[in-house]
C-alpha cells in the first residue's frame, strides 16, 4: 500500500473542503472495498479522508413515508434496525446477506453506494425502491445515480450524506451468490410501491439496471407464474469464469420468481 496523508474531519463541510483542496484524495468510510483496493495498489490516493468522526451520518430515522439512513450506518446496523425491519423488511434482510459478518460490522451504506460495485447488493435496493441519494449539495434519484461500472453521478468533491428510502407496499430481494465472495452473480430486487412495480438487477451487467420486461409483466399480474413469460437478452450481460451471460439471463428470471414469491 502506498503512503498517504490521513485526515479525520468532524463535519461534512470540513470533509468537502479537504476534498476540494486535494485533487487526489479519497473518502474512507468502512473501508471494506477501499482498503483491499489500496492493498493491491489499484488506487494510490494522496490523502485519505475518514468520515468516521462525523456522528450525524450514523442516524436511522423514519420521516413520514420514508426511512432515512445515514451514510455511515453499517450493513449490520441496517440489518438489525427495528425501524428498517418494521417498514422495509426486505432491506434489512438484504443488508444481512452482504459479504460476511466482519464486513457487515465495518462496511457502510454510503460507502457501498458511492463505490458502485456492479455486483454489490445495495444498488439494487436503491434502484428498485426508487431511493434518493442526499449529498452535501443536492438530492439525486437512484435512477440517475448509477451511471456505469464503478461510476456514479457524484462529483469528485461530493459527499454522500444519507439515502432516503420510500416505504413500499411490499418488496423482496433474492440473490444467487458467488460461493466465496458472497457478491451477487445475480441479485434481483422486486418492489411493489403501491402505484407501480420496480425491478432492479445487480451482478448481471456492467452496472445495476432496471428490468422493464419483468416490471411490465408484474404490473399486469403480480404472480410467480406470470414470470414464465419473462426474458432477458444476454447480449449486454457479464459472462465470466463463474457464469456465462446466458446463465445469468436465466438466473434473473429465477431470482425474480423467488423475490415475487417472498412478497406474497
Amino acid at each position: 500500500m502506498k503512503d498517504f496523508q490521513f485526515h479525520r474531519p468532524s463535519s461534512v463541510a470540513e470533509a468537502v473542503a479537504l476534498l476540494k483542496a486535494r485533487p487526489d484524495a479519497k473518502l474512507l468510510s468502512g473501508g471494506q472495498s477501499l482498503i483491499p483496493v489500496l492493498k493491491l495498489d489499484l488506487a494510490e490516493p494522496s490523502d485519505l479522508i475518514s468520515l468516521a468522526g462525523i456522528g450525524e451520518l450514523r442516524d436511522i430515522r423514519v420521516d413520514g413515508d420514508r426511512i432515512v439512513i445515514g451514510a455511515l450506518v453499517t450493513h449490520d446496523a441496517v440489518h438489525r434496525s427495528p425501524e428498517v425491519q418494521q417498514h422495509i423488511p426486505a432491506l434489512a434482510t438484504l443488508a444481512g446477506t452482504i459479504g460476511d459478518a466482519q464486513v457487515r460490522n465495518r462496511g457502510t451504506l454510503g460507502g457501498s453506494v458511492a463505490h458502485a460495485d456492479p455486483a454489490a447488493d445495495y444498488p439494487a435496493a436503491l434502484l428498485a425502491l426508487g431511493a434518493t441519494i442526499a449529498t452535501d449539495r443536492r438530492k439525486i434519484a437512484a435512477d440517475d445515480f448509477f451511471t456505469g461500472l464503478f461510476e456514479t453521478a457524484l462529483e469528485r468533491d461530493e459527499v454522500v450524506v444519507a439515502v432516503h428510502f420510500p416505504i413500499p407496499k411490499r418488496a423482496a430481494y433474492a440473490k444467487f451468490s458467488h460461493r466465496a465472495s458472497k457478491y451477487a452473480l445475480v441479485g434481483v430486487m422486486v418492489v411493489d410501491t403501491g402505484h407501480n412495480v420496480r425491478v432492479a438487477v445487480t451482478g448481471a451487467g456492467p452496472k445495476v439496471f432496471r428490468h422493464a420486461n419483468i416490471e411490465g409483466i408484474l404490473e399486469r399480474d403480480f404472480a410467480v407464474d406470470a414470470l414464465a413469460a419473462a426474458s432477458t437478452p444476454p447480449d449486454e450481460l457479464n459472462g465470466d469464469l463463474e457464469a456465462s451471460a446466458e446463465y445469468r439471463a436465466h438466473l434473473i428470471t429465477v431470482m425474480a420468481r423467488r423475490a415475487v414469491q417472498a412478497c406474497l
Partner: protein
Amino acid sequence: MAITLRVNRQAHTVDCAPNTLLVDVLREKLRLTGTHVGCDTSQCGACTVHVDGRSVKSCTMLAVEAADAEITTIEGLASSADGSSGRSGLADGGNLHPMQAAFQECHGLQCGFCTPGMVMSATDLCRRNPKPTEHEVRHWLEGNLCRCTGYHNIVKAVLAGAEAMGGKAK
C-alpha cells in the same frame, strides 16, 4: 505518526505510518502474534479481532482508524467480561475463555491456523445471539475460512461454546 490504541484493556502508544494495517501493529509492534494473517485479501478471517466488541478483519482496517476504539485480541479474550471457563490452558498459565475451552473440548481445529479468528468471530456471534442455531452459526462463519475444512467440529464447538457462555450469564 503516533497513535494510542487500547488493546486488551491496556493503552499502547505506537509510532506508525498512516498506511499501517491494524493487524501489523498488533503483530509487529505489540507482538500479539495470536492474530494471524491467512490471505491478506480480506477473505479468510484469520485476523479477526474485536473492535468495540464487534468482530472485524484487522487486515482490512488501518491502525489509525482504531485509535479511539477498544480492541480485544485472542490473547485478551479470556480476561474479557464473559471471562474464564475455569479450564487452564493459556501460555501464561491462565484459564481459557469458554469458547476457547469448547474448541479444545470438541476438537474444533486441525492445524489451528484459522482458530483465533474462528474463536473471536464465534464469541461476537454468541454475545449478540446467545442461542444460535446450527444454521445461524454456519451463516455467521462465512467470513472465516478453514483450509483443513474442519467445519463440522468447529460448528459443534461454537454451539457448545454458546451454551457455556449462556450458562455463565445465568
